[in-house]
């Protein structure tokens, strides 16, 4: 009797619960779409403003006082040069650290300290890295406002991101494979070099690309080290002065002439294009090499 009553009540409740479910599934979907909506507004505005200024000349000319002549060549090359410094340094240090922590470090206080330290560094505001770069590289080591100083600052900035991503990738290598290798009499480094790194590489690369795309968009730390400069040449060596895309965009937006706002929008399109390409490569790598072991 009691059972029957409870069951009927439970069943009576079902339609209400289903409506609630429907309603909230809609709310959650809406929340997800909000982000996408903002992104599309942002892109739409930037595209309508800037697309008219994008042509071949825009990529091959240097900055100019005339909006129609202004180009982004110096900034693109500066960005590439800076990445040329940042990427290898951050990659070697970051992956090295990750391998150390995952494969070699004993689970002791020191390891815990390094780990904690890395996750904290990941949360340090970029402008603080700018202060570090200014004090240490620009002034301390006398590197001035060079590609090298900028690249090193950026490398430190993205180092924690790369470490964490690489650690995850290494951790995701199934224990099975390691055991199989050790079971054949392989040494630790042989196992790491021949099994762990190749298997983790897609994940590591993905993390690196995402970290680099963060570095490409950073403005504040470079303002700190004084990269806000009119540059009409391509860097020639590590000690050359340079400018990068977000700095060039920032420079354009602070011009008095209104047309420069559109030039800035064009610069943003190029920058976003570069970011989207990098992100897509990362996603492609992730999806292509995602294996079920």
């Amino acid at each position: 009797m009691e059972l029957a009553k409870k069951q009927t009540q439970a069943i009576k409740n079902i339609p209400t619960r289903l409506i609630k479910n429907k309603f909230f599934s809609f709310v959650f979907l809406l929340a997800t779409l909000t982000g996408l909506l903002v992104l599309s507004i942002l892109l739409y505005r930037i595209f309508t403003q800037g697309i008219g200024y994008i042509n071949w000349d825009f990529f091959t000319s240097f900055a100019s006082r005339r909006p129609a002549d202004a180009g982004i060549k110096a900034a693109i090359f500066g960005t590439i040069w800076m990445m040329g410094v940042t990427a290898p340094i951050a990659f070697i240090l970051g992956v090295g650290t990750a391998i150390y922590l995952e494969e070699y470090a004993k689970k002791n206080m020191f390891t815990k300290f390094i780990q904690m330290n890395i996750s904290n560094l990941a949360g340090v505001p970029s402008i603080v890295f700018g202060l570090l770069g200014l004090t240490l590289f620009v002034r301390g080591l006398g590197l001035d406002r060079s590609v090298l100083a900028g690249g090193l600052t950026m490398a430190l900035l993205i180092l924690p991101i790369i470490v964490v991503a690489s650690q995850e990738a290494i951790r995701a290598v199934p224990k099975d494979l390691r055991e199989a290798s050790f079971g054949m009499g392989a040494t630790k480094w042989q196992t790491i070099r021949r099994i762990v790194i190749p298997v983790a590489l897609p994940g590591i690369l993905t993390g690196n690309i995402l970290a680099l795309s963060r570095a490409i968009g950073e403005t504040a730390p470079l303002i700190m080290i004084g990269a806000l400069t009119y540059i009409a040449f391509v860097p020639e060596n590590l000690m050359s002065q340079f400018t990068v895309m977000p700095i060039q965009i920032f420079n354009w937006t602070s011009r008095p002439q209104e047309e420069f706002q559109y030039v800035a929008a064009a610069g943003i399109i190029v920058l976003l294009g570069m970011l989207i390409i990098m992100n897509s490569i990362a996603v492609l790598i992730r999806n292509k090499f995602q294996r079920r072991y």
Partner: protein
Amino acid sequence: GSGEQASKTNTQTASNTTEQKTEQKTEKQEEKLSGTIAIDGSSTVFPILEAVSEEYNLIQPNVKAPVGVSGTGGGFKRFVIGETDFSNASRPIKEEEAALAKENGVEYIELKLAFDGLSVVVSKDNDFVDYLTVEELNRMWVDGSDVVTWKDLRPEWPEIKIEFFSPGHDSGTYDYWNEVILKKTDIRKDAQLSEDDNVLVMGVSGGKGGIGYFGYAYYYENQDKLKVVPIDNGNGAITPTEETINNGTYAPLSRPMFMYVNKEALKRPEVLDYLTFLNEHVGELALEVGYINMPQLEYDNNAELIKKAK
């Protein structure tokens, strides 16, 4: 009278010959000049030097002349220890800075490049402000001012809160304003300071009550959003225009802009060549980027200085 005349002719001839020589030199060396010229300093002067560098690179593509933006004070900081060849300034060098230069053995010459008319602007929506006197500007901008709304300034104006926008403390523009309007007292604390002049443009144009000041170029390019306020310095209200700035009637807010040149650097051919080019073209280029060129006499003076220094 005549002595002056004579010397002037002399100078002219002299400069003519120099010019010819330089031209010949330039022609000969056109393909050869290379090197890097270190330029830094004022953000106000930046557009002029940027234009010069851009034009110069068309003739001498191998000379690198990046223009830094560290503000007048920031530029001098590097200049006085010999780090830079040219330092742009929107005010003359200060005594302390000059002293430091001497200490470090840096000898320099001062060139005037162009005029800027500091423009006082209000929003386009502001239909009541017709002009302001220097005293009124002082009254409303100084620290501890009792002016909160426009009505506090002149009773016939409406009771709209004033929002103040000013360039930052490190800019030469601020220094100049501080000197001629504030009489070296502090600026009011609720004024919003920004090193980015567009930020000021947006700020002033964004609300009915705003007021701000900055270089003429920023007003000139944003005439559709801003209304410029004529300034009365006892001789009637004067609006900043090319003419009033150039002939000095727009006072006291019209000011010259400078470039300081390290004499040592002039020994490098590319620096000298660049400087010569600059002095020839800076007037027209200044006009193009929104400043006012000076009378030719001033440029001739510059040429003389350069000649002496090298």
